[in-house]
């Protein structure tokens, strides 16, 4: 069972304890150090939604070798920090992407490739693809181009690493704060058929959230 949104937030409880004992400064230094380590080690789950899936293998293998920056591919969303959505998203795909994103553990980030997740790209008038991805899940870095070369993807990684290092507010924090906005949008296009319906009732979080 996944306990969903109201998971154990060890980080903030630690912060409270430290602030009580007058050690908020220590927490800030620790946070800075941890952010540096977070930026140096990014586990990626590459979700090949569109044509951009073909740019992933050269990015991670011998030619461009993202591992030298600490960016490594992992097999499951449970272990991942970053999800790469590489191209247009059909409604059917969006449903799976939302589920995958919600399985990832915080802090988590999203990078999208290509113009399709920004404004629909060349599929802007398709009956089956979405136009703006950031209505449904928060996006940290857009790598534009159709399709972006692996160099651009690596530049996107570097940008994300700098943001993590500086401790800037990331997409997952926005998602937690504006959960109603995102869930309403998801419900509008997916018609309420959002998996997993048996775990958490997203629309009745006030009533305990149990379906």
């Amino acid at each position: 069972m996944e306990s969903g949104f109201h998971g154990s937030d060890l980080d903030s409880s630690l912060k409270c304890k430290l602030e009580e004992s007058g050690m908020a400064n220590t927490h800030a230094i620790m946070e800075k150090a941890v952010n540096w380590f977070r930026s140096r080690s990014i586990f990626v789950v590459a979700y090949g939604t569109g044509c951009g899936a073909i740019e992933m293998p050269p990015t991670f293998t011998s030619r461009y070798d993202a591992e030298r920056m600490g960016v490594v591919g992992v097999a499951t969303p449970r272990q991942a920090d970053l999800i790469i959505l590489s191209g247009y998203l059909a409604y059917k795909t969006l449903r799976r992407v939302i589920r995958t994103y919600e399985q990832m553990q915080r802090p988590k980030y999203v990078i999208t490739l290509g113009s399709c997740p920004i404004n629909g790209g060349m599929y802007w008038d398709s009956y089956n693809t979405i136009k703006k991805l950031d209505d449904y899940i928060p996006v940290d870095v857009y790598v534009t181009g159709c399709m972006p070369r692996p160099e651009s993807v690596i530049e996107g990684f570097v940008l994300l690493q700098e943001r993590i290092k500086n401790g800037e507010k990331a997409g997952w924090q926005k998602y937690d704060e504006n959960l109603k906005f995102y869930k309403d949008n998801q419900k509008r296009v997916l018609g309420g058929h959002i998996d997993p319906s048996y775990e958490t009732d997203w629309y009745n979080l006030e009533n305990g959230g149990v379906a």
Partner: protein
Amino acid sequence: MIFQIILLIMLAYVVGFIYFGLYRNILARIQGRYGPTIYQSFYDSIKLFSKKNTVNYGWMFYLGPIIMATGAVLTLILVPVFSDSDFLRSATSQGNLFVLLYLMVLGPLGNALAVGTGGNPFGVMGVVRGLTRLIGLELPFYIAVVGLIIAANSSDIVHIIDMQKTGGLNIINHPLLFIAAMISMVGFFGESPFDIPGAPQEVYSGPRTEFSGKFLALLMSQGSLFAFAKLVLIIDLFLGGADSLWMLVLKTLAIFVTIIFIGVVYGRYKVEQAVDFLMKIPTLIALLGLARVIWFG
């Protein structure tokens, strides 16, 4: 003694992670890549420890990685690190090779319990494969160890090391036992051709599929501790132990790099192929070595 145990764990943690970073670098160079920094595993583990956790499957899921870490730490403190001095020989007097062999199986057991509670089908699949493979791995290793015990007339590791000082190294005296134990060791390190339990592209991360954040960090840490313990055990049994830190690093590195190179060259066996191979060739080699020990000394 407590101080020595803590120091030993810290040493094993650092050396194990640096070896793992080295492993990733060597792998990268073999594949024509630049590779990560040698400290990459530290970064990964600190990041994973700092992740938040929203996964909860009950107390057994939490306990599994802890049981594994317990097995690794107990194995570590029972292995004498240096041959001459008593330094870092933390709890060696409390146990012998039989206890050690028993403790080495504790990790997979804890893993199986936790993954079973998690209920992820890929995890369960990986655990079943891992336990099946373990049957094959243990047989040649145990026969090799029994051969050494008969040759040394003692199950005390310290005694086996001392015997090698006068009578020559076991790798020269009993090469067949060494070959059998090394083939098993490749499997214990999860290298190809015996890397079926956590095979990517097949069962995702196998037993680790459901573990995230802190659990994964704990698994990685215990993996590095356990790797160091196994390397030290091999050099104690066959290479006469190490009398200084440099000797320790040199000998463990030699064994580790050999294992990496074997792993890089070979493809992956299916689980029944792996057990089939391990039951035949290494077991036969180990039995020949055992016969040689019994009849020719």
